[in-house]
């Protein structure tokens, strides 16, 4: 596999005001989300279940149709691509799902599973494909004997390696991992995380890593984006996020993840309300109801996404936050 390089630092993928809803339920799943992923970086997308994380992943690949907005892959809008352009883009963007036993076809051998993307995208000739499948197995740490076997003959960790191999076989530049390690044992999880880190180092693959587990995100993300009720509330370099989260919701998430109970905690009301979205969302801050730092204007006016400048700017991406607390304080002194 060739290392993707040259453009490091430029956004490989940029979302602009992406909105998506499921009309039957009149449910807004993703609400005007803008974010950037720099080439060669890992963006960790976090938030509670139902925040809209997976909907974003599916929209990027046009598996579901967005209402509005743009998804620019290397500057080109995926939503306006013709079928040919879309096909070649899908070869460059691959997806790894949460449950490997459900995402691998039970009736296909590993070889058939790995050859299919190569055939679909008409990559190389028979010899190349044969060689490529062997090479990719080696990359993910499985041996050749795996080719003739079926998914059920593997453990869940090995199945996830096969799913990753299937995603890698087309030489993608962007890999979207949707809770790819969440269903695995801690010991297997750490093996898969090691594999992902190695892939990034060796091949320069850019990752959009979706997870609700902050400890996993800390392990592999360069930048962190936080979603709540379909909206992006903060995007920040990981070091900044984990040492000094800015948005009150980010603070809440981090408190939960480290086993503390945040002050905004309201027991079962949290469950009942946290995924309920009303049509009038746009006139308030979505987190106002549970926010420990709520001010009167939070329920009157939706905050704008503001970029926060740091004196000692972290090496990776910019830091944006959508909260009235930072309306005036645009420069954060360190």
């Amino acid at each position, binding site marked *: 596999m060739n290392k993707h390089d040259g453009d490091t630092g430029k956004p490989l993928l940029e979302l602009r005001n992406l909105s998506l809803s499921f009309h039957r339920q009149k449910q807004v799943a993703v609400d005007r989300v803008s974010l950037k992923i720099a080439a060669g970086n890992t963006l960790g997308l976090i938030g509670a279940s139902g925040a809209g994380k997976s909907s974003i992943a599916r929209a990027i690949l046009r598996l579901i149709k967005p209402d509005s907005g743009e998804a620019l892959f290397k500057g080109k809008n995926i939503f306006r691509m013709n079928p040919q352009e879309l096909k070649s883009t899908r070869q460059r963007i691959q997806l790894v799902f949460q449950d490997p036993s459900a995402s691998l076809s039970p009736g296909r051998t590993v070889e058939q599973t790995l050859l299919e993307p190569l055939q679909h995208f008409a990559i190389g000739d028979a010899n190349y494909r044969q060689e490529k499948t062997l090479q990719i197995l080696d990359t993910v740490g499985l041996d050749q004997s795996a080719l003739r076997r079926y998914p059920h003959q593997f453990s869940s960790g090995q199945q996830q390696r096969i799913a990753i191999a299937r995603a890698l076989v087309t030489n993608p530049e962007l890999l979207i991992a949707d809770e790819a390690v969440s269903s695995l044992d801690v010991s*297997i999880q750490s093996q898969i995380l090691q594999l992902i880190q190695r892939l990034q180092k060796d091949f320069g693959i850019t990752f959009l890593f979706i997870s609700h587990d902050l400890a996993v995100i800390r392990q592999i993300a360069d930048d962190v984006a936080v979603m709540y009720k379909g909206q992006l509330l903060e995007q920040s370099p990981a070091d900044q996020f984990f040492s000094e989260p800015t948005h009150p919701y980010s603070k809440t998430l981090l408190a939960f993840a480290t086993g503390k109970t945040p002050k905004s905690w309201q027991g079962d009301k949290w469950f009942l309300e946290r995924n309920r979205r009303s049509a009038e969302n746009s006139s308030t801050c979505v987190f106002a109801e549970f926010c420990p730092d709520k001010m009167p204007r939070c329920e009157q006016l939706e905050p704008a996404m503001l970029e926060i400048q740091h004196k000692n700017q972290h090496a990776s991406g910019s830091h944006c936050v959508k909260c009235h607390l930072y309306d005036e304080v645009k420069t954060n002194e360190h």
Partner: protein
Amino acid sequence: MTTPALKVTDLSVWFETESGRIPVVDRISFTINAGDATGLVGESGCGKTMTAMAILGLLPASGVSVESAGIEVNGKDIFNLNARQTRAVLGRDIAMIFQQPATALDPVFTMGQQISAVYRRHAGGSKQHIREAMLDALESVGFSQAEDIADAYPHQLSGGMRQLAMIALATVCKPAVIIADEPTTALDNSTRTLILQQLERLRTLHKTAILFISHDLNVVRQICRDVIVMYCGRLVEKTDCPSLFIQARHPYSAGLLSCIPQISATRPTPISSIPGQVPVLTDLPPGCHFAPRCTRVEARCRKSVPELDDKNGSGAACFRPL
């Protein structure tokens, strides 16, 4: 000495197959006192769930054999009961919280009906009394709108709420022992916090003994005092939680600990992992089952089986502990 809430002595489980007996749980003994929580940890396939099912007498009668020198709840032996006797014990003296509430709950009954059924079976009483007990159980796990939850079918609740309703179902008769099998594994952090708080409340308020099964030591650490580490059906280390986190003595426990990603302000060093994987049960290595993956292995590890090294039945089962 007080009678422990749960006392398991030399519990073994085998799968009976055409090619012979396969050991799934191998001579496990432990006790949990009232008001204590013990964590049972290990990778998938180590026998954690089989241990729980064997304690509850929920394993099928054919294909599996269970042996034990006694499983006691508050001094009463519940091992080798017939089906009718088992039904009388489950839910009243000992109850289980399953990993997947979506599949463990009955989709065609409301939560209220399901919880009432348990209470009617074991405690009985007037309709009014049963309804009060049911609402009480829902309120006690933190639902402020207990009536709404009682009228809801499982599919109308989110994953976290379903798990809470499941806890209400398990605790409506205030059993002495609760076995929680990976109750927080599929849940996000905020939901997990709520579930753990409720289990903690049961433990302190009703002195319920909890056997908490999980592969996540971070969670076990939050609610358990003692911890049991299992590998391939055997108990490899038994100690209290703080000691395990300060100095795990069995190389397998140490390996599990090193796999846990940590949240820190500075970027963590690359995560480590235990090499290899859990062997298949039909092909267990002789001697210590962990020997092929162990970094401290020596010749005798591959021949004989180490026992727990403390006289009181705790410690590490290892010839070369850390």
